[in-house]
């Protein structure tokens, strides 16, 4: 278990799996403004990685650099095993990018957009038509295929955008805020799409400002704040970075309460409510050992609840949110 907020946990300790994306000390500034101030990343192939941060944290800049759209001022990065600075074309051949702003050609139809991508991936005419029809079907755009993309709704445009990204069968996909501006239904659709991509073995690098989204989708999350990675880990690991997790046992029988308090010496007592708080990170292992101790001591609580700080607490604690939430997070 990580002991400090800044540590990045890689608790397995074994050899690292091959990285789809790795970066060391990536830096970028625009004029005086430093947007990325030394970013290190290691994203295993086949996983979902979320770069989480508020607006202006540098998420889009990171995606632009890793997808070879712009150059970095310092640091190195490899994507799909190729250096982004020295072999950008090899990187481009392995990736698909769906930017924050729609990258579809509004003047032509959805189908023509897809066929354009097929041509640029040098698919044969027949193969291009097949892939186009398949992806339009998969993303629910078959009915709208012959309409100009400019007439599409926000959710449809985003789906077309991703469908276009998938034409070449990229191994690594960058999704820059894929659900920003979408209604809840479209957002859930998008989540489903991401899950399907991953089940097909694709590595997904997504940025989001929604903690819930990172929690839902990502294997690993990095919190980007002021151009630096403030913390990295699984959603659970991040939550455990913030103190405050505990298991609460509540009793109705004062005798049972007293004997439990005697058995669990580390517990904080709340004599009025007949409740005990046992600090912990809320992992299954820890919970099991606690239950074992309760069983062997013959204690039966009337109510057991696990309290973990949620990602909001983590986020605010790491990125210096409002005072109130910081207090809550360190409580």
């Amino acid at each position, binding site marked *: 278990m990580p002991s400090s907020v800044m540590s990045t946990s890689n608790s397995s300790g074994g050899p690292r799996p091959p990285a789809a994306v790795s970066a060391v000390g990536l830096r970028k500034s625009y004029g005086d403004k430093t947007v990325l101030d030394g970013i290190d990343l290691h994203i295993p192939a086949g996983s979902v990685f979320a770069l989480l941060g508020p607006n202006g944290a540098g998420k889009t800049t990171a995606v632009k650099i890793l*997808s*070879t*759209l*712009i*150059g970095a001022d310092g640091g190195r990065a490899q994507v799909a095993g190729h250096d982004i600075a020295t072999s950008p*074309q*090899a990187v*481009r*051949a392995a*990736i698909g*990018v769906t*930017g924050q*702003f*729609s*990258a*579809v*050609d*509004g*003047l*032509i139809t959805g189908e*023509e957009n897809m066929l*354009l991508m097929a*041509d*640029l*991936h*040098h698919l044969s005419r027949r193969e291009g038509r097949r892939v186009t029809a398949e992806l339009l079907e998969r993303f629910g755009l078959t009915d709208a295929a012959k309409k*100009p993309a400019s007439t599409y709704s926000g959710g449809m445009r985003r789906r077309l955008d991703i469908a*276009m990204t998938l034409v*070449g069968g990229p191994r690594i996909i960058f999704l820059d805020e894929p659900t920003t501006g979408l209604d809840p239904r479209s957002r859930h659709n998008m989540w489903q799409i991401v899950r399907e991509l991953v089940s097909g073995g694709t590595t997904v690098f997504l940025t989001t400002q929604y903690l819930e989204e990172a929690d839902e989708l990502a294997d690993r999350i990095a919190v980007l704040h002021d151009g630096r990675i403030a913390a990295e880990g699984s959603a659970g690991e991040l939550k455990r970075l913030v103190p405050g997790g505990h298991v609460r046992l509540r009793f109705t029988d004062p005798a049972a309460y007293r004997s439990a308090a005697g058995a669990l010496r580390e517990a904080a007592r709340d004599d009025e409510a007949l409740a005990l708080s046992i600090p912990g990170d809320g992992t299954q292992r820890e919970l099991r050992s606690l239950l074992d101790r309760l069983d062997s001591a013959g204690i039966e609580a009337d109510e057991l609840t696990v309290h973990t700080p949620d990602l909001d607490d983590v986020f605010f604690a790491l990125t210096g949110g409002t005072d109130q939430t910081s207090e809550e997070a360190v409580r």
Partner: protein
Amino acid sequence: MSSLSLAVRDSSTMLRRNLLHVRRYPSLTLNLLLTPIVLLLLFVYVFGEVMSAGIGGGGADRSAYLAYLVPGLLLMTIGSATIGTAVSVSMDMSEGIIARFRTMAIHRGSVLVGRVVGSVLQSVAGVVLVGAVAVAIGFRAEGATALEWLAAFGLLVLVALALTWIAVGMGMVSPNAEAASNNALPLIVLPLVSSAFVPVEAMPGWFRPIAEYQPFTPAIETLRGLLLGTEIGHNGPLAVAWCLGLTTLGYFWSKSLFNRDPR
């Protein structure tokens, strides 16, 4: 795939995209053709008598001025069409689709090459259309040989290529469509102050050097010579030099603009 065949394949894909835009939204192109056609009809049918008297040393009728006017208007058609190029390039560059192209393993120059070839084709189509209007109202180039016709066509393509590359650069430095159309204004103003409408000799002395050595006048005089048998003289090499110079300038300018990191 070799890099040349990759370049050709991607460029032709980009060309198809641009031609598809023109086919779907012909109004921009047609609007730009309206200017030269209106000017042609206006100068021939409304000002024709006066203008003819001015150029033919007296006694010339309207058809003499028509003959004088057409070569200039054909070149003006190209200038006008390339304004459309500047506008659509600036619109295109602000779209996410160009960012997408930049992150794809395609031939990098194909975005620009496809655009330029498409615009040149559009310009040539415009020239043919305006030329057809001219012929319909009585323009004839009966003295011209097949070789001269071919040379005239070649010159028009060369001018279209030069102005298109410049327009692409103008489109790329312009943050939006309005700015692009303003920046590209010289492409339609320059023909007005060339020998398109009146001979340079008829202009005030201080203005003559400007009119004589700007890119349009040598091209117009060369075209006139090829179609109507007037004296070409030094205008031929001058026109070709202008075209090659502008093409080179526009090519490297546009290329360096495109290779800059996008905002």
